[in-house]
């Protein structure tokens, strides 16, 4: 590697225009390998074989290559490119890209450089931007632009690597302040962020699909994969007991499966972006936040309880579930508003309450018996609820992601009375059933629960393992959230369930993300939010803050000035002419010192003559004579040791 750098980067080695162009093509084409289809990759391999043969092809051979390329293009787009396909931008751009690749490769085989071949790397770069939208690509684009600039300069200057690299760095540095200023202040409009193209991250997250199992098919996700990244507009993150991100709401139990209400049932209000004011009694402590939700391929998007304002394209339904038109097929960034302090449920249809009371005692006979006792003992629904809670606590249930001894036929009974091990779905299932058995309408809510441990500043990370299920009971004409998982243990800390019964199995929810990983994700999220997803909204937020917050404005301006100063300093550093004559460079500090003392070197005067002139003015000229000797050895004998000694001797002269 060192040899490579020494041989290429720091020498005056020149590359031919064709070689420069080839480097340009390689750099801009590299990311596209992840996009282009296999037939085109085969065509490119074929092309490289022809290039390495290094023989000029006849016209007939070129026609053959062109036909082969066209065939591969057709094969790549087969089934996709039709009249309907052309309307899909990605397919259209892909077709253009393939044709461009074909044209470029054919021209390259002729070994003649023409204007179109020169501009093609830039066109390929512009086209590649259609396919990617990630931090990796952002960094690569910045690198790509630098390399292309370097290649253009190497061509224009006809210079070697060293000189053209130096010039490229200087030009690049000068352009940076403009890029920063333009990026921040260039007016944006609120068009939707592009959702086409290759994301570079094809893995989608397991979103809840509107059902919940209590048997082996139960939702038990141990993955640390990020589902959501949330940033709160206010710097403060709400406490953990408020971080319930609501998903689907389930009413009906069929065997070991919970389902939502059928769509034909008429609801209290139609889904809308903003929850109707009469749908809640009050909604206080409203909080605004931004969510980046990774693709789930499901229609639910997650908002904190209680969702008040959904993003554009999102709908809040009568259960306060929020769905997104078309489903979350790509990474989705949305702003939302929720109320942390609320009361709702006043407006509800009787039929819905009826559904929330339905429970088959045959599915859980023991639970039913216990509920019957409670129902008999307590008349007031609140007291009955308290009794259920007490019962759960008294059962010393163990929260475990690997419950043992659960009877698949009687999951609820075996969880509550036999195995006493389970996780959120079992707790929610048992609590809902028991509530219904005692006559309290209840339903299950699935979603995610956030933990303040997984946060930095206003950034909160939600992983797949944070998937959760809880219960809502209808008391005093309002829905009340109860998280039965919290009843699992007597050792409840900071609203989080901890290790149960001193067993060594930690609860999955409390497994904190490694701080380093969290910081990495936070930085990634910040870059994505402020660079990749920078929008009209963010621009306005920034400008408004700039206008209203003097401290922020000051920091902002100072930061910009700091960046510009840093860039100027770097520019000056790279403008310095590299030392070509080591002897002269070593002695130049002494010449400056002598000039200050009135001994300026004459135009025709040699350095040795100047030193002698200066020495004659001194009583003790031994050090100057030594310097003169060392200077001659350093400059003319290439004696590195002498150069070092010269440097030291010069330092001795005050």
């Amino acid at each position, binding site marked *: 590697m060192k040899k490579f750098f020494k041989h290429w980067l720091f020498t005056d080695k020149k590359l031919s225009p064709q070689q420069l162009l080839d480097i340009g093509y390689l750099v801009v084409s590299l990311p596209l390998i992840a996009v282009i289809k296999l037939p085109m990759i085969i065509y490119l391999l074929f092309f490289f074989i022809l290039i390495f043969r290094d023989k000029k092809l006849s016209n007939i051979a070129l026609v053959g290559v062109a036909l082969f390329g066209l065939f591969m293009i057709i094969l790549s787009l087969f089934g996709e490119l039709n009249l309907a396909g052309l309307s899909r931008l990605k397919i259209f751009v892909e077709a253009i890209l393939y044709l461009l690749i074909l044209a470029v490769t054919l021209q390259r085989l002729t070994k003649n450089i023409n*204007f179109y071949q020169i*501009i093609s790397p*830039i066109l390929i*770069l*512009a086209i590649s*931007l*259609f396919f*990617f*939208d990630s931090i990796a*690509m*952002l960094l690569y*684009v*910045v690198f790509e*632009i630098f390399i292309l*600039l370097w290649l*253009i*300069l190497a061509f*224009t*200057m*006809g*210079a070697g690597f060293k*000189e053209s690299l130096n*010039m490229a760095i*200087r*030009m*690049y540095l*000068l*352009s*940076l302040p*403009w*890029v920063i200023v*333009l*990026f921040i202040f*260039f007016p*944006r*409009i*609120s*068009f*939707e*962020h*592009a959702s*086409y193209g290759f994301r570079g991250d094809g893995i989608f997250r397991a979103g809840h699909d509107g059902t919940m199992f209590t048997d082996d098919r139960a939702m038990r996700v141990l993955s640390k994969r990020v589902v959501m990244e949330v940033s709160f507009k206010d710097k403060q993150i709400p406490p953990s007991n408020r971080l319930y991100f609501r998903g689907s709401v389930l009413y009906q139990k069929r065997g070991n499966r919970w389902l939502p209400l059928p769509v034909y049932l008429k609801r209290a209000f139609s889904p809308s972006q903003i929850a109707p004011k009469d749908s809640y009694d009050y909604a206080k402590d409203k909080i605004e936040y931004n969510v980046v939700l990774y693709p789930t391929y499901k229609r639910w998007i997650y908002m904190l309880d209680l969702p008040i304002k959904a993003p554009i394209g999102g709908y809040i339904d009568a259960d306060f579930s929020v769905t997104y038109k078309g489903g979350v097929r790509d990474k989705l960034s949305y702003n939302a508003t929720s109320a942390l302090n609320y009361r709702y449920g006043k407006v509800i249809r009787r039929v819905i309450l009826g559904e929330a009371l339905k429970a088959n005692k045959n599915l859980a006979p023991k639970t039913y018996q216990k509920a019957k006792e409670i129902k008999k003992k307590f008349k007031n629904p609140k007291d009955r609820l308290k009794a259920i809670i007490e019962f759960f606590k008294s059962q010393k249930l163990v929260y475990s992601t690997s419950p043992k001894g659960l009877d698949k036929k009687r999951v609820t009974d075996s969880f509550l009375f036999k195995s006493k091990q389970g996780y959120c779905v079992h707790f929610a299932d048992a609590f809902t059933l028991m509530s219904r058995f005692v006559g309290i309408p209840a339903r299950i809510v699935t979603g995610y629960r956030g933990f303040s441990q997984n946060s930095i500043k206003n950034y909160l990370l939600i992983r797949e393992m944070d998937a959760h299920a809880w219960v809502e009971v209808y008391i005093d004409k309002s829905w009340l959230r109860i998280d039965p998982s919290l009843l699992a243990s007597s050792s409840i800390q900071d609203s989080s369930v901890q290790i149960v019964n001193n067993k060594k199995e930690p609860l999955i929810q409390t497994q904190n993300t490694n701080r380093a990983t969290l910081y990495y994700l936070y930085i990634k999220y910040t870059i994505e939010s402020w*660079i*990749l*997803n*920078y*929008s*009209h909204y963010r621009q306005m937020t920034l400008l408004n803050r700039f206008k209203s917050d003097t401290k922020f404005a000051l920091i902002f301006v100072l930061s910009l000035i700091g960046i510009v100063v840093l860039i100027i300093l770097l520019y000056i550093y790279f403008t310095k*002419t590299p030392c070509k004559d080591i002897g002269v460079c070593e002695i130049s500090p002494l010449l400056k010192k002598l000039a200050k003392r009135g001994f300026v070197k004459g135009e025709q005067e040699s350095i040795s003559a100047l030193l002698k002139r200066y020495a004659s003015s001194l009583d003790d000229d031994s050090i100057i004579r030594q310097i003169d000797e060392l200077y001659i050895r350093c400059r003319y004998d290439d004696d590195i040791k002498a150069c070092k000694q010269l440097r030291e001797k010069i330092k001795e002269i005050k």
Partner: protein
Amino acid sequence: MMKLPHIFRYRYRQIRQRATKFSLLVTLLLFGLFFEAYMHNFNLVYITLFFVFALAFSAGPFGMRNIKAIKLNFAGCGRLFAKKEGICKIKVQNSASYPVWDIEVFADISSDYLGKIEAHKIKVANIKVFPQKRGKFRLKECYAQSRFPLYTVRFQNYIQNECEAIVYPNPKGKSLDEYLNIRLDLIGEEGDFDGISSSDGKISASRIHWASVAKGEISQKIFEKSIKNQELLFDYDRLKGDKEDRLSQLTLWVLECERKELDFEIILGSNRFNSKEVGVEKILQTLALY
């Protein structure tokens, strides 16, 4: 302070900027990226757009700094003849402490690519010219050009002094040898005796072959044809053809005499020019401007 704009104008007066086809490409690229970015709120494209813009923008100062370091000086031309290709020289000096790049000198219809010029160094550009007429010749559009750094702008630094030269008449006509064969008698002093021939008696006394006169015949002496230490005399008025033909003929003879190291005299109207006295160059200039 009021003088600043004036100084600035003066400094940059000689520097012009011209677009290239790559400027058009950059413009199209900026438009394309702008629409791609704006329609889809795509920040990756915005960043590329801003980089392209910023680099194209910063290319201006870099290119200007590069070209303004150049000083052009006309270094004269070799002998120029009408309707014949010639070479003019332009001295290109890099007056800066940094190297300048991609320098090409243009004048008339030709150019000479010099590439890089190191700090405080001079290179000479050889410009091919093809003057059509004799007389004074001025190099049109003489400037140094650089497309550094990005090929998007042609920075041109125009020469400040006049690029003038004199074009001599197109040398053509009968060669000197041919001419000497015909007009041997016009050659000055004669040398070695070569033989005799009969004569009608209308010859000068010095040419009479007296020995043959004694025998009752009048013969004339014939001498060797080329005699170097004699002067040639070319008279404009005694030549055939129009003015340009005569001047071309004289130019041809002048050049031949110069090559053969013969001294000569030219009579142009009332003026008489001796090559020994005024020199060939002066005579050629006189012919060029006659």
